[in-house]
């Protein structure tokens, strides 16, 4: 399997986040960036929101790249810097898992 590019994963994560925000009718005060707080202090999503988005991201990666990542386990929860804090952090976490699996 060729490793998907950082750009591809970041786009995918952004689309999943955007979709959840659209579903909930969340108004953004500023355009989404890779560093917009996603979950945690000042984050856009509450716990149900992040959990839902994570499953969407897992399923989309499975469908598009035929790869399995596990983003909602104790390991993800126990990271010193939460992988859920921004699009960029989650993208890094996913890329880390993909390269471990490759």
């Amino acid at each position, binding site marked *: 399997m060729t490793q998907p590019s950082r750009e591809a994963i970041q786009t995918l994560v952004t689309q999943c986040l955007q*979709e959840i925000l659209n579903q909930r009718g969340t108004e953004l005060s500023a355009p989404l960036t890779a560093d917009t707080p996603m979950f945690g202090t000042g984050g856009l999503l509450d716990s*149900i929101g992040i*959990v*839902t988005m994570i499953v969407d991201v897992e*399923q989309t990666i499975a469908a598009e790249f035929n790869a399995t990542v596990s983003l909602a386990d104790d390991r993800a929860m126990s990271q010193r810097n939460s992988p859920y804090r921004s699009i960029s952090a989650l993208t890094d976490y996913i890329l880390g898992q993909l390269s471990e699996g490759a």
Partner: protein
Amino acid sequence: MTSSLTWLTERLRQFEDRPAILSPSATLAYRDLLDARFDAEALLERDAAGPGSVVLFDAEYTAPSLALFLGLLLRGCIAVPFTRSSVTTREQAMEIAGVTHDYRWHSQTGRMVLQDGHPAPPPHPRIAGLAREGIGGLIIFTSGSTGTPKASLHRADRFLHKFREAKPALRTLLVLPLDHMAGLDSLLYALTGGGSIVHPGAENPDAIGSAIQVFQAELLPSTPSFLNVLLLSGVFEQYDLSSLRIITYGAEVMPPATLSRLRETLPGCRLIQKYGATEFGSPPTRSREDGSVWFRIHGKGFETRVVDGILWVRSESSMVGYLNADDPFGEDGWINTGDQVETDGDYFRVLGRRSEMINVGGQKVYPADVENVLLQMDNVEDVMVRGEQNPLLGKTIAATLRLREPETLAALRTRVRSHCQGKLPREAVPVRIEIADENLWNSRFKKTRNKES
């Protein structure tokens, strides 16, 4: 013969040449069934099965099997009906119940044949107690919440007591397995009321539709999953099912969407919610109005009360107890059903098993509530909702949907979430959405939600 059951044979004898069982392969009159019972009693005599013997047998809608069942009850044995949809394996059932005799249906000869080489285990104290009184019994297995099935022991006299009052019975289409309380109750209501059992021979919707049409079945005891399958299979359009006067359903929570489709499809048919349990059988129930999920229990010998949202039942026909688990009896013989109910006067609505409740971040979610909402969606044929472990919220909701037409997961996901908006609280909206490629119900026509990850 246990004298307390003479009423049963006398009752059956009244119906003489009336058909007891109608099936595409054979018709069996009451007289035939009673004759076959003498053969069965002779067989049991030869094999030294009497009071205190625990007898497992293939329980089918055939003369030798039903006659053996009757013979076992009359001889004071403990009957352990077994079918291929049992919640236990045969070996597990034999071990838990302490089976002394194992009869298998031999298809070539059409006889019940005793299996050899079975060392008699020491009897369970509760069975020994019945044997001392010369009272027969019945063991029915129920799936336990801990994984090991529980063996529920009933006294034959008390179990059969509610059938003693003669009530004319309808021509009943039965596919419910005979190792299950609903199957046994339906069978006995029909036979003690002089009704006929229509058995389609196979369990596929086609065979069922055809049997209803050919034999003009009037009553269909069922489960919501089973009715959903019938609706989807198109048998209501293919066959003339206008002979059906009453459909009863139980064992699961009825989705209102399925109920309203049934009402549209069979406008002349009464739809009745049943409520029963392995531990106390099925009391007569009355639905509040046709097509309502509210019902009340109005049977003689059944009392109900609601404690902390949970339904408790007390009945003369309750089991003696479990053979291999702690009894669910509270004081004075009340049984905790484990069913969470809503009440309105003396009517109930079952919300679900307390054990099926999914705790999402501290909020209670009942799978049936979510399934009902999802079933209203276009292109959704069937739904199963379960809880999934989640490190952040404890549990989250996962939904598996069976579709009529192919659809991408991404499109379905968007549709599900927008459909649920305003209809379900946020914690009840499915987080994981999957598309099924198989049936969502098992051989007992109940949804299998325990596939928890």
